[in-house]
C-alpha cells in the first residue's frame, strides 16, 4: 500500500482523536476569532426591539439536555433581551426531556437577571401531545396548563394578566430540537396569526430556511453560531461566543481530512471499489 492509498484509508479512530484534540484545545485556550451577525438573527432581535407594551413572549423550550449546548445560550440571550425591554417571558415545553433544562434556565434568570418568578418570567412545564397542546393554547393558555411547573395556578400568575389565549401574546419564539417548530409555524403562526421566531439546532435550521424565505417566520437562529450572534446583539457574550473558536478548528479538521481523502483518491488507485452494490457500480447514480 503506497502513501496515497494510506491517505485514503485512515482508520476512523485517528479521525476521532484529531477531532477531540482540536476541539478541546480552544475550549482550554480561546483564540478570539471575530463573529459576524446575519440577517436572520438580526430580524428576531429587531422584532423584539420594536415590540410595544407588556404582552408576554411565549418561549417554547422544546429541547432536552442533548441539544442544550446550542439552544440554552439562545434562551438565555432572548430572556435577557426581552426582560431588558420590560416584556415578560412565558416558558412552555412540548418535549418530554425539556423540563429539567428549562428549570435550570428559569433559576438562572432568577439569580442572574433578578427576574421575579411568576411576574417577569414563568414556566408552565411540559405537556404531552405537541400539536394538541398548541391548538388548546389557542383556546386558552391555562387549558392545557392549569398549573405552572411549580404548582401555582396558571391564571393566578401576575404574568397572565390580560392574557388568555396564544393570540394575546406578542410572539412565540420556539427553541427547537425536533420538528415541533413546524407545529408552531403551522398552527400558532399560520392558523392563529401569532408572529413566530425560531431558534433551531444547526441540523434542523436548513429546513426552516424555507419558512423564513416564505415569510412564515420573522427570523431564525441556527445552532451555536446563531446563539453567539444573539449574545453579541444583546452585548452579553457567553457560552456560545466562547464555543465559536472550537467550531472553527473542528471545521478545519474535517476539511483537512476531506482534502487528504481526495488526494488519496486521485493519486492512489482510482479504481477503488466505491459502492459494494453491483447494481450501483454498473450505473453510478
Amino acid at each position, binding site marked *: 500500500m503506497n502513501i496515497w492509498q494510506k491517505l485514503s484509508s485512515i482508520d476512523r479512530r485517528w479521525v476521532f482523536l484529531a477531532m477531540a484534540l482540536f476541539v478541546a484545545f480552544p475550549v482550554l485556550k480561546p483564540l478570539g476569532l471575530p463573529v459576524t451577525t*446575519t440577517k436572520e438573527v438580526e430580524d428576531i432581535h429587531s422584532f423584539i426591539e420594536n415590540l410595544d407594551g407588556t404582552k408576554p413572549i411565549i418561549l417554547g423550550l422544546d429541547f432536552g439536555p442533548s441539544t442544550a449546548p446550542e439552544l440554552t445560550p439562545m434562551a438565555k440571550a432572548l430572556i435577557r433581551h426581552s426582560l431588558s425591554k420590560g416584556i415578560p417571558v412565558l416558558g412552555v415545553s412540548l418535549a418530554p426531556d425539556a423540563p429539567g433544562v428549562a428549570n435550570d434556565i428559569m433559576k438562572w434568570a432568577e439569580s442572574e437577571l433578578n427576574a421575579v418568578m411568576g411576574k417577569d418570567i414563568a414556566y408552565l412545564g411540559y405537556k404531552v401531545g405537541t400539536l394538541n397542546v398548541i*391548538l388548546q393554547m389557542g383556546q386558552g393558555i391555562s*387549558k392545557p396548563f392549569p398549573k405552572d411547573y411549580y404548582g401555582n395556578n396558571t391564571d393566578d400568575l401576575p404574568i397572565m394578566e390580560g392574557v388568555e389565549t396564544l393570540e394575546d401574546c406578542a410572539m412565540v419564539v420556539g427553541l427547537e430540537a425536533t420538528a415541533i417548530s413546524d407545529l408552531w409555524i403551522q398552527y400558532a403562526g399560520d392558523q392563529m396569526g401569532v408572529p413566530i421566531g425560531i431558534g433551531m439546532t444547526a441540523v434542523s435550521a436548513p429546513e426552516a430556511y424555507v419558512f423564513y424565505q416564505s415569510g412564515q417566520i420573522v427570523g431564525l437562529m441556527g445552532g451555536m453560531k446563531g446563539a453567539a450572534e444573539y449574545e453579541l446583539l444583546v452585548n452579553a457574550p457567553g457560552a456560545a461566543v466562547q464555543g465559536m473558536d472550537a467550531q472553527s478548528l473542528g471545521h478545519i479538521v474535517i476539511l483537512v481530512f476531506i482534502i487528504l481523502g481526495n488526494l488519496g483518491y486521485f493519486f492512489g488507485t482510482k479504481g477503488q471499489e466505491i459502492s459494494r452494490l453491483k447494481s450501483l457500480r454498473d450505473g453510478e447514480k
Partner: protein
Amino acid sequence: MKTKLPLTVAFLTGIFMAFSYFVERDNVDWVRIIYEELNQNNIVIGVFVLYLGVATLIIKHAKNIRDKDSDSIYSWIVIASTFVVSWIGLAQTEGDSIGTNDNFQWVFNNFQVPLSATMFSLLAFFVASAAYRAFRARNTEATLLLIAAAIVMIGRVPIGAVISDALNLSGSFSLPAIAEWIMDIPNTAAKRAITIGVGLGMTATAIKIIFGIERTYMGSGK
C-alpha cells in the same frame, strides 16, 4: 364490529378535526366545544400510549431475567434504575408539582443530562469520519455535494470571514456570503420540492386513514 367500530371512530374524529380547520370556531359553539374536547382527550390518551411503552419495556426485561439470559445483569440495571428514578420522581415529590423536587432535578442533571448529551456529542466524531470517507470527488453529483458542504462548513464559522479577507474576497463573493446564497437558493429549491412531495404524501395517507383504506395502525395488515 371489531373492525367497523374502530374505523367509524377514526372516520368521525378525523373528519371533524379536518372540518374544524375551516370553521371560525369562536363563532360556532358546538364546533369549538367538540374541538376542545377532542384535543384535551388526545393529550391524555397520549400519556397512556407512552405508558404502554414503559410497560412493554419492563415486561421484556423481566422476561430476560426470568429466562436467565446471559445478559440478565443488564436487565437488572434497567429495571432497578427505572424503579429508583420513578420512586424519586413520584414518591419524593411534595405538594403538587415536580418542579420543587430537587432530588429529581439532581438525578436529571447528573444522569440523564450526561448520558444523553454525550451520546449526542458522539455525532461530532461520526460526522468527521463520514465526511472523510464519503466526500470524494468521484462524479458530478458527489463533487457538488462535496463543494457545497465545504463552502457552507467554512462560511458558517468565524474563520471563514478571516480566510475571505486573506484572499481578498469581499461583498457577495466572500465565503460567508456564498454559503448564505447556497442555503437560500439551491438549498431552498431542493428542500421545497421534497417538502411539497412529502406534504402531498402525508395528506394522502391521512385521508386514507380516515376513510379506512389505510389500516396498518390497527394491526390488521392490508
